[in-house]
């Protein structure tokens, strides 16, 4: 169960957060949410796929770390094997909350195994001033929240121009086993190149063209993900 509290210098003066990346600390996940403003950085390592929530009829962008639930192929004994981690996973166990008057606040998931150790990174210093670590987290949460709200318009544009298509991909691993990746959408490249000038200008003016191409380019990372999976299976 999650147990969210408002982060304050008085209540959390001595709080330390474990920042290592291990399965025990909740990093063994197959995906995490990502937002268009970080697609450029996300696509340096991870495939970006879109998932349709049928009940709410809305799309979410996901950075992929593995092929099945609980599988994170970037997690190694030496930590997270990539220079960039998506905001949503890097900012844990903090999250954005809403206070009175819809003011955004930093909240803390008290149920997180990252909390409560004597080793780890401090959030406030002895005087109650946020540490550089918390300053970075606050920047990340701000970016994530702002963009998550804005991404509804991004997906509306993708649907307006019918730029999303369902992905069905069969992956054959080195051991001969066949795996099928279903339930995701990707950018429809044929429709993207066929867009008329007005549509391109419209998407460009809204700042969507860059993330669209970044998402398209990110699919090249699926090959890297398969290679990681093969290596892991070889190692046993």
């Amino acid at each position, binding site marked *: 169960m999650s147990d969210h509290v408002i982060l304050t210098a008085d209540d959390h003066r001595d709080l330390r957060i474990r920042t290592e990346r291990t399965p025990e600390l909740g990093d063994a996940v197959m995906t995490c949410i990502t937002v268009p403003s970080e697609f450029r950085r996300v696509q340096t390592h991870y495939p970006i796929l879109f998932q349709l929530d049928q009940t709410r009829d809305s799309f979410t962008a996901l950075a992929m770390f593995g092929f099945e639930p609980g599988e994170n192929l970037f997690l190694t004994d030496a*930590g997270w094997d990539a220079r960039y981690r998506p905001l949503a996973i890097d900012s844990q166990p903090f999250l954005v909350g809403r206070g009175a008057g819809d003011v955004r606040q930093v909240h803390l998931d008290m149920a997180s195994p990252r909390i409560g150790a004597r080793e780890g*990174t401090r*959030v406030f210093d002895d005087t109650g001033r946020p540490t550089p670590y918390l300053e970075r987290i606050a920047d990340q949460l701000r970016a994530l929240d702002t963009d998550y709200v804005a991404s509804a318009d991004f997906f509306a544009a993708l649907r307006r121009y019918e730029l999303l298509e369902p992905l069905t991909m069969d992956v054959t691993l080195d051991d001969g086993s066949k795996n099928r990746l279903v339930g995701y959408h990707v950018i429809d490249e044929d429709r993207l190149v066929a867009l008329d000038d007005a549509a391109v200008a419209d998407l460009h003016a809204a700042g969507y063209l860059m993330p669209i191409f970044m998402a398209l380019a990110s699919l090249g990372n699926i090959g890297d993900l398969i290679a990681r999976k093969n290596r892991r299976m070889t190692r046993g």
Partner: protein
Amino acid sequence: MATNTGPGITSDHPITHIVIVGGGTAGWLTACLIAARADRDTARPLSVTLVESPDVATIGVGEGTWPTMRRTLERIGITETDFLLACDAAFKQGSRFDGWRTGAADDSYLHPFTAPVDGDPRDLVSAWSEHGGRFADMVGAQGAICHHDLAPRQRAMPDYAGTLNYAYHLDAGKLAALLTRHATERLGVRHVRDHVVGIDGTEHGDIVAVRTRASGAIAGDLFVDCTGHAALLIGDHYGVATIDRDRELFNDRALAVQMPVAAGSPIASQTNATAHAAGWIWDIGLPTRRGIGCVYSSGHLSDDAAADTLTRHIRATAPDAPLPTFRQLKFQSRHRAKFWERNCLAVGLSAGFLEPLEASAIVLIELSLDALLDNFPSHRGAMDIQATRFNTLFRYRWDRIVEFLKLHYVLSERDDPYWRDHRDAASIPPRLVELLALWRHQPPSRADFPMIDEIFPAASYQYVLYGMGFPPPTRGPIATADRARTETLLAQIDQRRRMLAAGLPSNRAYLDALRHTTAPAMELSA
């Protein structure tokens, strides 16, 4: 001791059998380093034998190391966790000097192991004199980390890596025991527990063998004298002269004591050296105890007065703890005129001893082995040339250590006879006098320390000089490369200090967690 005549030794005689006489920190460090660095696949692999007398108690030299110990342990093949646990060790990030300048309550400065931020020392020192505050705090982040009793590394980091430069505080007795196990069980060192009763030499003067009470003659090609103050080989056998340094360094006694500490109590990040009327007091924190000792000059302070001084120091921090008996150590600051004679190399106390202010004992052992093994004489013919080089290099190093130790005293404003005597011009090495004259006009820089492997870099002199309140030089006539860059560097230090203070665990949390994670699980018997 009797010297037999044996056959002459030719210059192409290979050096393969190493015999170390004496255990203790010096003997076992020597054995481990030689055995670990020896090439096992060569045509004539080295054999290492250590002869240790069961009759002679070892003196635990120093409880502080230099950062070099990290590389030494890594070379020997001991993991950092094993070392920290086996030696009851803690991290040492420098030394704090309390009361050295005036003795006033706020008279304190730090000499951290991490060098100042990389910049022209003229710019750094002039920026510091404009900003004010403590020099060490301004030019690096380590001061704040030490102040908060934080560790220099996180447990997740690879062995012997740190975000700040560090060394260790340790239990020297336990270090010798760990090295003994490692040398004999892992590195193939032959351990002979026997008393040396004689030395066999050739007519040319080389040692052929040491004769033991029960194990016969132990022959070798190179003999390492680790027999401590006894100096059986370099002193008794060869009669190599010693050079007294007590004209410069007066301390010749110490009263030592160990106080248990409460579980969970903070562990200091540095050696604390507190000046008193005729010497100083060391205070070294380990996870389970504090090692405290009063160093003094018997010419300036009686044993009873020293005991009173030590008692007052202990009572100031532990008012109610029972007071254990003090152990007295007598020493003299001196070293050999030569350290390598014929086929005998003196390592450790047999080579010399200086008062323990800069924990120079163990590092000199490490440096001696580095010098031996980096230029190992594979044949007898090369040995005399290497010995001459070694003697020149180490004479230079002992001189530099004496000067650096003396620097701590000559800048004091304290008025006791002991401190006044330390400022007597006749007691100050001429080279130090010259440097101090130079430093009135420019800060210590690389140009003052021209050797490639200087034992103390210019940074160490800067920390002591400006910690002791030496006046910073005014701007000289020659422009420096980039003053603006210095301001940027100094601004970055503040961010780094905040980052490290947030991310580093306390020494106590680190070392307790180490014990917690590696303690064997308790098994319940049926």
